[in-house]
Every structure is written in structure tokens, then in C-alpha cells.
């Protein structure tokens, strides 16, 4: 390095190599430097205001920041805000019956919106997310109800659960031909014209008109909707024959069909059950 700067008047730093290669000093613009320092100040202020340094020695966890902000607190505030909006509706729902909620158009709209999650959590696993049912599980969106589709019955069904029973008729009671004959007339929707219907005592539960009895939950045999839809490539006729042969929930036949709706009375609050009843009613089949 030279003692005297051989290139005076130039903004070099005095670092010169190979006689004339020199390092110039071109600082960034002032506004850039201001922005640079301001962003560092910002960072310091941020560290004071918000939690920043993790794993402090002495097991104190982390710096808490002067405002005491936490993500959890913010989340809880958000939830409280939502609940404040919901509170007047929820209060109204608590003081009304499901039938009254249904009559109040605005409240019913709120209920349907808020019960969607409840339905997804508690009902959709069996009945499908849109109430479309599934193999072995009833459709909630149609107009055919075993126990009745009015709002109070729906509340009762959710609260208490349902477990109907049909005895197995295969073997001793009905011959294969008789089962075949009955099943064919059921699929055609004309079971009442079959003499076996009365002769074999079907009439006792399914009624003289074959439309079922709501208090028992016996199926309507004359309409186009079947409680048990065919699975695995069988036909509707096969499915009906199976039901007649082995019954439903019949203790004497291990191959009997299983059809049980669990009770939700002890799992859900009264409010939630009301909401769900309104939701189910509004799926398309309420009566």
C-alpha cells in the first residue's frame, strides 16, 4: 500500500493494488440507509411488543412481550366474537320448541346453517353428508318415514334412538315359494292383492293397507322406497326376500338384518337436538 494516495480527489478508500486497482467508496443512498436502520428499529420494537426469543435459560420459556399477545388469546377472542353474534339466536332456540323454530323463517335459516357441522359430526357417517343414506341406512331426504316425518317425531327419534323388529319368516313359517310370491308382490307395490299377506299375518304389523304403522316403525310395503336397498349386485327382489327370510333385529336369527339408530339424548344438548331435527326436516322430507 502506498503511503501517499496516488489518485487524490477520487472517492477511493486508499486500498490500492497492482499500482492502480483501487477500491472505491460508493455508499448506498441516504434514503436507503435510513430505511435500513428503520427496519432494524422495527425489529427491535417488534421484539419488545410481541413474544420473540424462545428457549430462555433458566426454564422461563420465552420472552412474553409487553403486550402479552398470544395466538391462543387472539383465537379465543375471535371465538368469543362469533359467539356474541350467535348468542341472541341461541337464546331464542333454547326457549322455543323445534316446531316453533321451524315456523320462524329467519331462525330456521340460522339453525340450518349452524346445524350443518352438527350433522356432519353426528349423523353423516351413516346417513351421508346430504342425508342421502347408504347401504343399510335410511335416506333422510325423501318423504318416506318409518316412524313419521313431523318435527316432533324427528326430535324423539334423535333423542331416544330407534330399534324396530321384524321376526324372521324363513324356514318353518314360510316356504321358499311363499317368500318368492310375497317378495314379488312387494316389489310390484301390490302386496295387498296377495292372499298370503293376510293369511300369513303380515297385516298384523304392516296394516291392512300395507302402508305400515308409524308407532311400530313397520315399513310401507306399497311405495317405491325400500328400507333395504340391494347391495353387491343383488336385485331389489333378492333384498326383499332376504329381509322376509331373516327378519330385522330378530334375536333368533344370527343373519337377521341389523337396523339400529342409537340414542343421542345423552350425547347432545337439547338445543343441538332441536337444531338437528330442524336440519333433518329441511333436508327435503319433512312432513
Amino acid at each position, binding site marked *: 500500500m502506498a503511503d501517499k494516495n496516488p489518485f487524490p480527489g*477520487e472517492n477511493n478508500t486508499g486500498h490500492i493494488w497492482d*499500482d*492502480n486497482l483501487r477500491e472505491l467508496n460508493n455508499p*448506498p*443512498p*441516504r*434514503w*436507503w440507509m435510513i430505511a435500513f436502520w428503520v427496519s432494524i428499529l422495527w425489529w427491535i420494537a417488534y421484539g419488545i411488543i410481541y413474544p420473540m426469543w424462545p428457549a430462555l435459560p433458566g426454564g422461563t420459556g420465552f420472552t412474553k412481550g409487553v403486550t402479552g399477545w398470544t395466538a391462543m388469546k387472539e383465537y379465543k377472542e375471535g371465538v368469543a366474537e362469533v359467539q356474541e353474534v350467535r348468542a341472541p339466536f341461541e337464546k331464542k332456540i333454547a326457549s322455543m320448541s323445534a316446531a316453533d323454530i321451524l315456523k320462524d323463517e329467519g331462525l330456521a*335459516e340460522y339453525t*340450518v346453517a349452524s346445524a350443518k357441522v352438527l350433522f356432519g359430526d353426528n349423523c353423516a357417517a351413516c346417513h*351421508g*353428508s*346430504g*342425508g*342421502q343414506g347408504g347401504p343399510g341406512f335410511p*335416506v333422510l*331426504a*325423501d*318423504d*318416506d318415514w318409518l316412524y313419521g316425518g313431523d318435527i316432533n317425531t324427528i326430535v324423539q327419534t334423535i333423542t331416544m334412538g330407534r330399534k324396530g323388529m321384524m321376526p324372521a319368516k324363513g324356514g318353518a313359517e314360510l316356504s321358499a315359494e311363499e317368500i318368492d310370491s310375497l317378495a314379488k308382490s312387494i316389489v310390484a307395490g301390490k302386496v295387498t292383492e296377495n292372499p298370503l299377506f293376510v293369511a300369513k299375518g303380515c297385516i298384523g304389523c304392516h296394516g291392512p293397507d300395507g302402508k305400515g304403522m308409524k308407532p311400530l316403525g313397520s315399513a*310401507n310395503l306399497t*311405495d*317405491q*322406497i325400500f328400507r333395504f336397498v340391494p347391495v353387491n349386485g343383488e336385485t331389489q327382489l333378492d333384498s326383499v326376500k332376504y329381509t322376509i327370510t331373516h327378519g330385522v333385529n330378530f334375536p333368533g336369527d344370527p343373519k337377521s338384518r341389523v337396523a339400529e339408530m342409537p340414542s343421542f339424548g345423552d350425547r347432545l344438548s337439547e338445543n343441538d337436538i332441536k337444531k338437528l331435527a330442524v336440519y333433518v326436516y*329441511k333436508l*327435503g*322430507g319433512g312432513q
Partner: protein
Amino acid sequence: MSDNQQTKRDAAIDALYEEAAHWELNTGGETIHAKRMPGRWRTRKWWADAFWLIFFFGPYLRWGDRQAVLFDIPNRQFHLFGVTVLPQDIWMLALLLLFFAILLAVVTAVVGRVWCGFFCFQTVWTDLFTWIEEKLEGPPAKRRKLDKAPMDFHKFRIKLIKHLLWLLIGFLTGVSFVAWFTDAYQLWYDIFTLNLSVVAASTIALFTAGTYGLAGFMREQVCFWLCPYARIQGVMVDNTTAVPTYDFHRGEPRGRIKKGQKDQNRKLGDCVDCGQCVAVCPTGVDIRHGQQEGCIMCALCIDACDAVMEKVGRPTGLIRYESLDELNGKETRPIYMRPRVWIYTAVLTLALAGIGYGLLSIDAIEIKVLHARQPLYVMQSDGSVQNKYTIKILNKLDQDVDVKISATGPKGLVLVGADKPVYAKRSKVTPRTLFVRVPRQNLTSETVPIVFHATGRTRDGKQFASERESVFIGPR
């Protein structure tokens, strides 16, 4: 290495450094104090500046019982005099943005950076700020002297007034901006009663600080280093674009006028190297270097040069609006013969037509039909097929109305849930869930079209209607 070679190498290196030394990089180290000279373009610049008065005074116009132009974000409405645009019609905004983007392009292609030089808020606010500076501190030479002078009461007083005025303009800018988004009169009331919302207060604070910093201190640095448009606009300019240009054929070689020299004895060009064009430049560039990124094409150098030319008795227009092709004597095509202009104009017209169509054809109501997907259809006990729809009625009227819904589609169609009309609140979307039942034998295929109609009357008896096609889905 021979001595001769060594000297050659040294000379080459020196030349390199020399080149770098002459490349002036304006990074704001020195405040540019531009001289103000009256002239044709200066006057036009004032008129262009005045365009921004709309920004300051527009919010105070009323239309009926509300603000004439209001971007009501909390309620998601945009009022434009008699028309109210809801978010559903926001596609018009896209066309509006397209219109302005192309307008920028077409203007730049024809006459250069008119936006930058005359209309840009950065230019206009800086112009206003420096005008105040000149009124308080005097012409550039005096300003430079004052900047260097030690702080005393006189300097402090002048500077204080200047900065307070700047801050006031910044504050008014912030208030005016916010006033487009909330009721302007209420805003002032809130300001005086210290009742401002956090959003309004912080927006005003941000604009005050932004205006003060950008127009007071950053100035041409914004055009040089921050603004993306500045660079984009440079790309749109070509050899046929008329821009403020120094006529180097006529001006060079430049040289000072010697006292007493006769004009006919002068062997130099018309440029008398007085430096006035540089003195008046708000970005501190020398137009005689040719087109450059720093030139915002404000044309103030034209005024300066013309004044000097008149003084020394030479024809004006040494610096003038001229394209590079014209300057070089090349044949130039008139504006209407240039495809670029044609294409831009076509896009402009399309965008305008779209906006016009949109504003004229805003319906009273608009319905949307959402077919339930889960399940797609439900079989009923009587053998009919049921589909579920959510009808969303958007009421664009200024009153709540009853809307009747009906449907046409396959034979035997039954609409359930539409007996009562839907009470549609104004400027809101009101949903209604409906069911449609069709006997299975009437379905000709898996999906058949179905049309929903919404009709009603306003309070003054005007009829309105809207319809929407959807599908009815049945089993295979």
C-alpha cells in the same frame, strides 16, 4: 512487459475509470432545486395539476341523501351518481382497469410519458411542494444558500412553516383519499370530535407521512428507483414517438456566445450552452444527452430553451416535441397509419363499450341457482324424483321487494317451497331452498334442463324479472 505496453495498459485502465466517473448516478445525495420559468408548457402543467382538484373536492358532491361517488367497502357497494354497483358486477372494474392501462400505453406510444410529466401524483405533489418551497425560500440559488447556512431563528421559522404546510397538504391528501370510502362530511365531523375509526386514522396517518416523505424528500428518486411505471413506459416509446427532444443536428457543436461576436462569424451550433434546460429540470437530467430513464417528459426544458432562443435572437424549438425518426429526416407515418395505435384504440373501444353495456344493463334483480350435489336426487315414495336447489336472489334495487319464483321444465314438474314469495332485502343476496319433483317416467334422460324465473314489482309498480337455467338430475 515493455514500458510501452505498460503505458498502453495504464491508459486503457484510466479510460475505464474516466468513463465511470462521468456516469452520474443520481441517488439523491444532493437535493435538486429546479428553476421555475414561465412558458407554454408550464401553463399546461398547471392545468394538468388542477385535474387533481377532483380528488380533493369530488367526495363532497351529493346525490340525493348520499355521497355521489362512494366506495362503500363495509357494505360492499359502489355508488356512482345514480348507479349502484355491487361486487357481482365487478367485472366492469376489470374493464375499467384495462381501459386505463391501455390508455397509458397508447398515450405513451404517441406522445411519450405524458402521465409521468403532467398527471402523476408524484409529479404533481412534488410540483406543489417545490412551489411552496420557492414562495418561502426563494429561487434555487437562495435555497441552496439557505440549506448550507447555519440554523438560526430566521432559517428555523422558514423551515418550520414549510414543513407544516407540507404536512398539512399530506393530511388533506389522506383525508380526501379516505373521503372516497366513507361519508366525507361525517369524516370531518369525526376528525373534529376525535372519533375517527382506527382504519380511517391510520390511513390518513399513512398518507400524511407518505405525501410528506415522497413529495417533500424523495421526489425524483421515486421516479428513478421506486416507480415501476417509469420503466414500463420507457419500453412503450419507439422511434416514432414524439417526445421532448434536443435537436442535436441544429444545436451541435454547442458553445457559449462571446460578447461582441457577430452572429455570422459564429461557427458553432445553435445551442449556447447556457444550461437553462438542466437548471429547470425537476429530475436533474440533461436533455442534450438524448432520451434517458430520468426524463419524465414534463417539457419544462422546452420553455426554458425557447425563452433563451428568443433572447439571443434565434428560432425557437431547439428542444421540441419531435420523434427520433423525424429528427433524423426519416419518413414518418402519420398516427393513423401505425398498427400499434390501431390495436390500442380497438382495445380501448372494446373496454369502453363493455363498461357502457354493463352500466346500462344492470338488472333490478339477478338470480343464481345452485343444484344440491349431495345427493344429486332423491327418490320419493310415489316414484317421482326430487332435486334440491338453492336459489340466490341478488336484489340490486334500492328497496326491499317480494320476489316470486317459478320453474319450467319437464312435464309434471312440481315446485315445493315457493308458495310464499321471497322477501329480498335491498343490495343483499337472499337464499331460498326449493325442491322440484318430477315423475320418473317424464324424464327423458339423466339430466334435463330446467329454468327458474324470478318476477316481482317494485313499490312504484315497475316490473322486473330474471331467469336462470339449471339442470334436473334423475337416475339413469
